């Protein structure tokens, strides 16, 4: 009985909200007519016609007890495509600048045995060498 009352209440609330009159500001314009050919395409002034994004990966150095130098590699998640390779001290802060196909949403960073997969959700992303503690 308690459940029935609760469900009835929710249903009334939904019904009431669905009957709320739209304000002018709620109006959602319909999409502009779809282009039929290239000449009809309209894009914003800042539209990037490129199919790649330039990524800046900010690497935060790790204060290793002794100087460690190794190869810093940025690749596709499956490591079949290498986007960036350089030789760096582990303690060094630096920026890895590379270009990534716009449809690539994850990258893998390898530094020797240290490996991390990063989400590419911005053109400026961060990396550090720290890994979750393994018990």
């Amino acid at each position, binding site marked *: 009985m308690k459940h029935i009352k609760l469900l009835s209440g929710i249903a009334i609330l939904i019904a009431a909200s669905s009957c709320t009159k739209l304000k002018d500001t709620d109006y959602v314009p319909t999409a502009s007519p779809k282009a039929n050919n290239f000449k009809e*395409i309209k894009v914003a002034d800042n*539209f990037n*016609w490129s199919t*790649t994004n330039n990524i800046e990966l900010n690497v935060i150095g790790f204060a290793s*007890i002794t100087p460690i130098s*190794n190869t810093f590699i940025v690749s596709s998640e499956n490591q079949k495509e*290498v*986007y960036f390779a350089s*030789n760096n001290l582990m303690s060094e802060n630096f920026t890895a600048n590379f270009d990534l*196909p716009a449809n690539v949403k994850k990258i893998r960073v390898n530094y020797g045995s240290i490996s991390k997969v990063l989400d590419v959700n911005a053109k400026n992303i961060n990396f550090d060498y720290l890994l979750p503690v393994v018990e």
Partner: protein
Amino acid sequence: MKKIAILLIITLTGFVSKSQTLSLNCESGNRSIEQGNCWAFGSVSYSNLEFRINGFWSMRTNQLTNLSTSACWVKTPWFKPGSGNITMKTRLENASGTSRGIVFTYVPYDANAISSTKEGTGTAFYTYNFATPLDIWVKDITVPIPSAIANSNQAYKIIISFIGSGGSGRAFADDLVIPGTYWSNQSNGCLPKALIVDADNDGVQDSDDAYPNDAARAYNNVFPASGYSTLMFEDLWPTLGDYDFNDFVVDYKINRVTNAANNVVEIKAEFVSRAAGASRPNGFAFSFDGLVNSKITSVTGNKIFTPNPHTFNANGTEAAQTDAHFIVVSNIFKVLIPQGGGSGGVNTNPSAVRVPNDTTRMTISFNTTTNTTSLSDVTLAKFNPYLIVNQTRGTEIHLADKAPSALVNTALLGTADDNTNAGSNRFYKTKNNLPWAINVTSSIPYMKETIDFTKGYNNFIDWSGSNGTTSTDWYLNLSNFRDTNNLY
């Protein structure tokens, strides 16, 4: 003031390595940092509770209800033991329980061990028993380094295990100091340091070195990362064309070879001319935005034909330019020769004779001693390829928003359908922001003659109409992505 000074020192790192000691004072407050330096922890965390021993952080074990040495432990990185005493502070969290102790075990390196850590069989060499009845006062523990491993010049780890029976009390520990020399490689699975194999002695181990026998070169940084990219041009700028984007079609890949110091040594560029659906003898060139002439020592492999609208510097870059400009092919019709003589489209009409693709391989050498170049100077984002129309040096067609060279005829900019506004860095776009050239990260088929580009790529309009938020993979060869009837 003293507190500030202490804070500054202890926040730098929780793990200190003086010249001949390993130390763990926990003041990083973050075990990940210690793990990064190859320490390991088993059911031992960092704690800043009131029972901490020194500073802001100490180690705190789980409840000590087990006499097994594998229940609660701290393990050092590989190190070469010195001589003298291991020292450590410890205390119990409460006085309940039957017994509490700390066991010290050394572990040798065993190259044949199955485990990835290559740890051999451990030897327990010292046990500290908390006196009974138990109490909560801080104890200073001193443990001699066993003679069997002291100054042995071999790599060992020491495991410090916390054991106990009865009750549920935990232990705290802090200020661990062990005589010895740190000998782990944090970037090699924390295995002991070893001599790397580096035939050319450039500091990059052979397994990572694309040129293991050439000290001047170490890495290939190629865009695109695999295969080729495709550039496609319309050549009627500043007026609109038919948007088949096949007036010149060229695939490319750019390998930026760097050395161990991460300076660009050379660029090996490969351009595959595929089609020229044009009626005019155009040329093809490129630059990198902001890359100046003085960084270049030589340019080879480009194809310059007579009559030639270009003049060159001694290093092979084009003369009278502000930046370094590289002419790839001065006349495309000399490498994609129209069949039937004279001029006319090449490889855009399927019923016409197909002309083989032509590949131009260029090598651009860089100054590596002074005025060096980094990868960020020669990214795809700075790559600026362009068409030089009809052997008229001043008529250039670039990708959208890419600036023309110093040799462009500025009188043409912003005329006819071109809505260039150099003052606001707006170049080579119509008032609706349409381009005269497209650069695609994969090698893709191009359009048959006069067929609109959108009739070949079914999701292109969705991509551009969404301002690039959807259909970002419009160019891939996936089901229903292309209309191959309209593609050459």
